[in-house]
């Protein structure tokens, strides 16, 4: 410990970690403190808790049809996540379990498509949805996300650790392929599903650009859109915006902490 160079190294490490922690935590803190202050105080940069919390909450609930908006957000994120996991994990399972001449070519093609930015897809997708008469519907948000290339890739990688002999054993036990998937693969891969749930749920919950384009009436809007909408007034009430931000962040936090242990396991690819 007496080595001054080592000491310096430790000081630098901790300094860096403290800065990183501050950068990550400060927005949360700012949000929580802001929710208790009047807009004018927030603009002045007041960093101590104030007394306006109840007022901000009541203004927020008066200006927003909260039950409806929450339902929209949860429905889209929930159903979207369930479908994405089901369809993308089926694809990942198929890519890893079945041999074919074209397998790697198709998979490579899929990965290539990851590089197409959403901005390039936006307009054709909108025209497609308009043709299907799906503008301003839940399915317009959910359907384009259910075959997620990233999640397919993630499941294929994770499936490499799934023992093929389990599938053989299940076939001898008389299971059909879909039963193997349902009764053997899914329970065995639950850590992977948990990790994917967090990733997909967060992405769906926070999704902004596409819902902004497709959801056109107030009763269809999601929480993310509504919170963003609060800031677009001439003089936004930042205290109310902060309350909205808390509600918008809470579910992802809860899901993350519920599934955290499995998330880490899933990221390590642990299959036992």
């Amino acid at each position: 410990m007496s080595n001054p160079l080592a000491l310096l190294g430790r000081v630098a490490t901790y300094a860096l970690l403290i800065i990183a922690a501050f950068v990550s935590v400060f927005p949360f803190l700012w949000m929580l403190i802001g929710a208790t202050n009047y807009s004018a105080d927030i603009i002045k940069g007041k960093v101590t808790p104030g007394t306006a919390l109840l007022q901000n909450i009541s203004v927020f609930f008066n200006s927003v049809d909260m039950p409806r908006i929450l339902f929209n957000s949860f429905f889209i994120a929930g159903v979207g996540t369930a479908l994405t996991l089901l369809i993308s994990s089926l694809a990942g399972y198929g890519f890893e379990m079945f041999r074919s001449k074209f397998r790697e070519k198709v998979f490579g093609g899929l990965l290539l498509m990851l590089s197409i930015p959403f901005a390039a897809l936006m307009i054709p997708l909108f025209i497609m949805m308009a043709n299907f008469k799906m503008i301003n519907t839940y399915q317009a948000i959910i359907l384009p996300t259910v075959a997620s290339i990233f999640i397919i890739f993630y499941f294929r990688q994770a499936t490499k650790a799934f023992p093929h002999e389990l599938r053989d054993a299940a076939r001898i036990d008389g299971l059909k392929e879909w039963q193997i998937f349902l009764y053997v693969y899914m329970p065995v891969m639950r850590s992977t599903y948990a990790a994917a749930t967090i990733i997909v749920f967060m992405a769906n919950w926070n999704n902004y650009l596409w819902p902004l384009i497709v959801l056109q009436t107030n009763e269809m809007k999601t929480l993310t859109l509504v919170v963003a909408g609060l800031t677009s007034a001439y003089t936004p009430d930042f205290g109310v915006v902060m309350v909205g931000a808390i509600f918008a962040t809470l579910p992802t936090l809860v899901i993350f902490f519920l599934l955290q242990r499995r998330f880490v396991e899933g990221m390590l690819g642990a299959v036992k």
Partner: protein
Amino acid sequence: MSGLKLRNVKKSFGAVDVIKGVDLDIEDKQFVVFVGPSGCGKSTLLRMIAGLEQISSGDLFIGDKRMNEVDPAHRGIAMVFQSYALYPHMTVRENMGFALKFAGRPKEEIAKRVDEAARILELGKLLDRRPGQLSGGQRQRVAIGRAIVRHPDVFLFDEPLSNLDAELRVHMRIEIARLHKELNTTIIYVTHDQVEAMTLADKIVVLRDGIIEQAGSPLELYDDPDNLFVAGFIGSPKMNLLTGTAEAGGIRLADFPEHLVPSPVAVPAGTAVTVGIRPEHFDPTGSAALDTSVEIIEHLGGETYAYARGAGSNLLTIATDNNRTLKTGDRYQARFNPASLLVFGKDGKRLR
């Protein structure tokens, strides 16, 4: 009535032929062991019998029924895998009853059969544990239990003991032999370990490169191998194989040019041959002898093996009839009876 017949069975993966035409009859209640080096196709052949790999051509009969296109679950077989392949999210009881549950059997029958298997394998106390909480040997017993519960006509074992340590392997080997007696069904067992093959089998099938080199009882294969490969593969320690040339009065070995070894079979002079003699067939009272110098001694207590050489570089393995006084560097006259020699032609086929 559940013997098996394989008729000109072939398997290829793309352009690669893995099984190149296998004809085999397995009788009801026989314990058959497929043995061979890795990559010989023994596991593939077993998986084809199980229905996990399609048969490219040829016919497979289990009992009298052609089974080529029948689902694995309906072939009347059960399989035990090398990695056990237990469902990790189910208890031992659920693992064993899973197939029956899917077949729609009543709960009481499942419980009865699981309990019966648990009794045979002494798994009673483990029934509510999960595979992750069991040792390797226990997992292997559960895997066997899962097979027993289905009351199959044919048991298939794919290198079931490879993942166990040496002591446990011997123990489980005896268990499996006992099980065969108790269940009295046909068993097909794949291994690369010729000791397992010798000790368990009624019939050994030696495979190499997708063809059957020889099939027969363990002692037939030991005493009377058809070719060099089988001679070298069966028996432990391995048979000594020495090259030589036939002459008028016998065979002149390249490593022992001073002797003319009497040949047990008539070989035309000038023929290049390989002579095989098993380490345990050296006999101090034998009529023929090879002069060797001892390089390494292995005392096993009950037997002493000498690794010795003649003029060449090949080491000869010799069972010395437990000669405990032998030392490295000693001259040793390895005596044997010419009748115990096996002679093989240039193509590796046995000359009889």
